[in-house]
C-alpha cells in the first residue's frame, strides 16, 4: 500500500486564481492547490468537480495544460453543461480536483520529436513542449481560422521551432496540421523513421494520422479521450481497443502508442 502522503496528493482542494476567456468558448483556468503537489507529467490529467451539486454529477477530465510555481493550469472548451458551469466559476472560489491521473508521455531520448496539435489538442501538447524545450522539438499547431487559433505569437515564447497553420490560410501556413506535417517530413533532411510524433486530438484526426505514420514507419504516441466516470480505473467505461486487448484510457492511458490502436 502506498504512503498516505501519496494519497493526499491526489484528492485536492484548489482555489481558482483565474478563469479567463481566451477566445470564443475557450477558457484558461489557473488553480492554486491548498497543499503543495508534485509536478504532474505532461499528458496526465485531473478530474475536476465543476460544482458542488448533483447535476452534473461526475467530475470532468481535463489535461494538465501547464504547471507553474505550484499552480495548475487547464485549457478547456465549453461543450456542454459541465464545462459551461466551470466557465462561470470565479476567482477565489474553491474546487475539488483528483489527480494527477493516468500515464504521461514517455519522451524518446534519440528521435527527433514532432509535437502535433490541432485545435484544443494544444492543451496537453503545450505542457509537453514547455517541459522538453531543451530537446529541440518541432511544434506544428493549427486550427480552422485565425480567430479559432488559441495561441498565435505567444506560443513562440516556448522558444522552440514552431509552425502554425490554419485551414483557410488566414494565419500561418494554409492547411490542416496533418498536411503541414507531411510537407515538413518531406522537406526535412532526416529520414521519416528518425522522427517520433506526440499528439492529441479527436479520433477523426488521429485515425488517418495513425495510418500515415505506420505507412512510413514513424512512431506516434497520442493522448486519447473517452467518456469517463471514475477516472481511476474501476468503472471500465473508458476503454480503447489495442492489439494487446482493451485498455483503460484513465489508467493505462491516456497516452497510447497509436500504432497499436485497433480502430473500430
Amino acid at each position: 500500500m502506498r504512503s498516505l502522503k501519496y494519497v493526499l496528493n491526489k484528492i485536492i482542494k484548489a482555489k481558482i486564481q483565474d478563469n479567463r476567456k481566451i477566445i470564443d468558448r475557450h477558457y484558461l483556468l489557473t488553480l492554486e492547490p491548498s497543499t503543495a503537489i508534485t509536478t504532474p507529467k505532461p499528458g496526465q490529467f485531473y478530474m475536476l468537480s465543476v460544482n458542488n451539486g448533483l447535476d452534473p454529477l461526475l467530475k470532468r477530465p481535463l489535461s494538465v495544460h501547464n504547471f507553474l510555481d505550484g499552480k495548475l493550469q487547464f485549457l478547456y472548451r465549453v461543450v456542454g453543461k459541465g464545462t459551461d458551469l466551470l466557465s462561470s466559476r470565479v476567482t477565489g472560489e474553491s474546487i475539488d480536483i483528483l489527480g494527477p491521473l493516468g500515464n504521461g508521455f514517455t519522451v524518446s531520448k534519440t528521435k527527433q520529436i514532432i509535437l502535433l496539435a490541432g485545435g484544443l489538442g494544444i492543451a496537453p501538447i503545450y505542457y509537453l513542449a514547455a517541459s522538453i524545450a531543451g530537446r529541440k522539438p518541432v511544434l506544428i499547431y493549427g486550427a480552422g481560422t485565425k480567430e479559432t487559433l488559441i495561441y498565435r505569437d505567444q506560443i513562440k515564447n516556448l522558444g522552440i521551432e514552431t509552425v502554425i497553420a490554419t485551414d483557410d490560410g488566414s494565419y500561418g501556413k494554409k492547411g490542416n496540421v496533418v498536411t503541414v506535417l507531411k510537407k515538413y517530413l518531406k522537406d526535412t533532411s532526416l529520414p521519416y523513421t528518425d522522427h517520433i510524433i506526440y499528439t492529441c486530438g479527436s479520433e477523426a484526426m488521429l485515425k488517418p494520422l495513425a495510418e500515415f505514420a505506420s505507412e512510413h514507419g514513424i512512431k506516434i504516441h497520442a493522448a486519447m479521450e473517452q467518456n469517463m466516470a471514475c477516472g481511476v480505473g474501476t468503472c471500465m467505461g473508458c476503454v480503447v481497443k489495442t492489439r494487446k486487448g482493451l485498455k483503460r484510457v484513465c489508467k493505462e492511458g491516456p497516452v497510447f502508442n497509436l500504432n497499436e490502436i485497433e480502430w473500430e
Partner: protein
Amino acid sequence: MKVSLGRLKLKNPVMTASGTFGYGKEYSEFFDINKLGAIVIKGISVNPMPGNPTPRICETPSGMINAIGLQNPGLKGFLKDQVPFLKQLKTKVIVNVLGNSADDYIRLAEAVEEAGMNAVELNVSCPNVKKGGIVFGTDPKAFEDLITAVRKKVKLPLITKLSPNVAKISEFAKIAEDCGSDIISLINTLTGMSIDINTRKPRIANIIGGLSGPAIKPVAVRMVWECRKAVKIPIIGMGGIIAAEDAVEFMLAGADAIAVGTGNFLNPLTTLQVLEGIKLHMKSQGINSVSEITGGLIC
C-alpha cells in the same frame, strides 16, 4: 457498528456495490479499504468477456447510464490476478458472479468458496447483456430454479441481487428467501436510455443501459421498503447513496447494510464519509446499534 447479515458478520454496514470498486486495488491507493464492512467485486463470468463497444457511459440528470457489458477477465484470470490481493484484506470480500446457466453460477460459486472468499452475490439482474442475467432476474420460474440449484451446491453465504426492472420486486425477494438465499441485495440499475438531440443518436453505443446514481434513490428506497415487508432475511440496500443521510434512509426503510456504487466515482472517499456520517448520526440521535435504525420507519 457491527452488523450481522445472518452468518455473514460485518464490522460495519458500509459496503461497495459490484462494478464500481473494481477488484479493490484501485481504491486502496486512496484509503485503507479494510475500514469498510465489505467490498463487493465486479461481476465474474466463467469465460472472459470483452464488454460492449464505446461510448459505454453517459451522464443524465443526477445519474449516469452505463452499458459496460460486464467486461471481466473470467474465472481463471480472477483467481490468478485478483485473489492473492483480496485474500490478504482484513475486510469481507464478496464476489459477484454471472452466467448463462445454473451450471455456470454453480461453478463460479464453488470456485469463489474454494478461493476463501466470504460470500457470493448472484447477479441475476444486470440489464446489459442479452443472455447473461435478464432472463433469471425477471422470470420468476427461472429465478427460482437458479437459486435452488446454486443453494444445493454452495455453502457460502448466498446473496441474491434483485433486478428493479420487474413489476413487483417483493415477489422476487420472497422467492429468493424461500429458495434458501441468505441475503438479498437491491437494487441493480434501472434500464434507461438517453439521446443526443443534435446527432439523433443514442448517447451510448449499446443504445440502452443501466441508470444509477442519486436519480434512482427514491425508487430504490421504495423497493427496499417493499422487500422488508415481504421477507425476514437481511437486506443490503443500494441505489444512489452518496452520503450518510442516504444510507440512513435505506436503513430506516429496512436495509441491514448498504452499498455505495456510483458514489465512489464522485469521490474515492465516499464510502468512508458515509461510514463516518452514520457514526455521527447515531451519536447525535443516541443510537447504540445499527440494528436500531434498520426498519425504523414510522408510518
